[in-house]
């Protein structure tokens, strides 16, 4: 479990680490006051911090992916990130580099992301076959590297496959805060451009946007989110956070802006409830979070079908009753 070696800390991370400590102090004090045992542990304080960040950035990026029919890309990148983890573990075992497997995972996932993007630019289409091939290749490479080196490594693999609440260090939490800032900041600055490219790529290009660059940026951000969320969610389930809350939000929202907001709210519900339940019942957090998210999705579908909330394509009863124009008026 010591595989989550501290990444070399550079100056900005020290300050973020201070932020993490501050959060832990505040949550710890609140836990003592309210008598919530779960929040009095340092690892749970960090797990919640990381979970809250994931609950914002995963659906934020996921919304743009899902509405370009790119739901699969998160899965493909997660599995290639696993190859990156294996490379890191392998390098450490063979050469004793002491490099964090998360760092190698980021590098490999970003390379895979750019590869997928370049292939799609050349062939002029994202296709699920090439995505499936990248996914399988990444996972196969990971398993082979790990099996070659089986001895001391097999033990450490589970936490990457399934995630682990208790191994989130202060350094890892600080790195996640940095990722969080980067991703939220990028989406805030380039929101209009990303929306345009997502909705109508050709028109965006005619309007003078460098569409290819936005696409590359998007897949690289996806790779970062996937590796960041991997700590808690695990390789196998991480992509669910990019897709399930977004699918639920699509049932409820009418505008793109509200879809983004809904997806973050629903993801936070899943993450907070999931981590709490996982702690209480000593279950794997990633699995519980995804099950809660799927439950939220099903509730959203039912709510939209019953017309309680939302505005779906075929559900006229969900239309705002205050709408001045009756249906069918051209």
């Amino acid at each position, binding site marked *: 479990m010591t595989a989550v070696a501290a990444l070399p800390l550079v100056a900005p991370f020290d300050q973020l680490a201070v932020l993490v400590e501050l959060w832990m102090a505040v949550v710890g004090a609140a836990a003592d006051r309210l008598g919530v045992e779960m929040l009095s542990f340092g690892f749970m304080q960090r797990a919640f911090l990381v979970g809250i960040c994931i609950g914002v950035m995963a659906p934020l990026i996921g919304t743009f992916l899902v509405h370009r029919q790119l739901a699969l890309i998160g899965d493909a990148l997660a599995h290639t990130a696993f190859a990156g983890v294996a490379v890191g573990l392998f390098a450490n075992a063979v050469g004793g580099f002491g490099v964090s497997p998360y760092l190698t995972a980021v590098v490999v996932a970003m390379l895979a992301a750019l590869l997928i993007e370049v292939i799609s630019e050349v062939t002029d289409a994202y296709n699920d076959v090439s995505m499936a091939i990248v996914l399988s290749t990444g996972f196969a490479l990971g398993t082979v590297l790990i099996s070659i080196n089986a001895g001391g490594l097999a033990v450490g693999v589970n936490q990457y496959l399934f995630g682990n609440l208790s191994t989130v260090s202060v350094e890892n939490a600080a790195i996640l805060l940095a990722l969080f800032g980067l991703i939220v900041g990028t989406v805030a600055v380039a929101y209009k*451009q990303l929306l345009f490219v997502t909705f109508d790529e050709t*028109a965006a*290009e*005619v309007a003078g946007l460098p569409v290819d660059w936005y696409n590359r940026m998007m897949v690289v951000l996806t790779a970062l989110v996937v590796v960041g969320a991997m700590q808690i969610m695990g390789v196998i389930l991480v992509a669910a956070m990019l897709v399930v809350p977004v699918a639920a939000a699509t049932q409820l929202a*009418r505008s*793109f802006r509200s879809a983004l907001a809904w997806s973050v709210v629903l993801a936070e519900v899943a993450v907070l409830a999931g981590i709490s339940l996982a702690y209480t019942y000593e279950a794997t957090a990633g699995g519980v979070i995804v099950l809660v998210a799927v439950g939220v999705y099903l509730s959203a579908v039912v709510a939209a079908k019953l017309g309680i909330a939302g505005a779906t394509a075929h559900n006229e009863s969900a239309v705002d009753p205050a*709408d001045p124009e009756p249906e069918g008026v051209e």
Partner: protein
Amino acid sequence: MSRGTGTTGDAAAAGKGEGEELLAFEDVTFGYTSTPVVEDVSFTIERGEFAALVGPNGSGKSTLLKIGLGLLDPDSGAARLFGQPATDFEDGERIGHVAQHAAAAKSMPITVREVVTMGRFAHVGFGRLRADDRRAVDEALDRVGMTAYADRRITQLSGGQRQRAFIARALATDADLLVLDEPTVGVDVESVAAFYDLVQSLNDEGITVFLVEHDLGAVANNAERVLCLNRELFFDGSAAEFVESDALARTYGADPGTFAEVTAR
């Protein structure tokens, strides 16, 4: 002014054109493989025109449009937008583009207003939308009669309404040139008529219209100038001359069915 294989259309087109070329093709040849899909095409669209590009399926219409918009680079020849090479053209706010199948449903949650607001993105870049941007959006919505639908999710609209939303986006851009790629695919007959009324009135207000269309009847009734493409340009002239000429027979390879459909109108 180069008119390609232009037969007798110069007079009709010149009546309205004010001389400024917005879109120009010069001996454009392009092929995805070694066989060209567009060969030696030359024509110019001038300010104020309402021109339609017609031709059978696979005749290179959409390809030519992409070249004109700078999305594809011709193998030989040149395409110019507002006098600049099309691929280097960067004043995106001067063109309003409605892509093929824009009327097809996308499952994305997005309101009509959000779609129309995209028309302002080329103006504001990374900046914030200001009051005059919002005013332009409101005016565009009003112009196409979609104000009441502004907060409706776009997937809830009919094909015709959706098409109006896309036109509104082009209007919000303050575009001089409206480029439409098969705008009426998947739109019901009455909506097609209403749609062309709208495009016609926009053209009357001075917006230049260039569209690719498969509906020959709609073209004959609405466009001022017709260009027939089947790899090469077969006809370039006024709509009236187009109906009377044998251009269709030559372009489509003498398919009496298509021909009868148009002359019957």
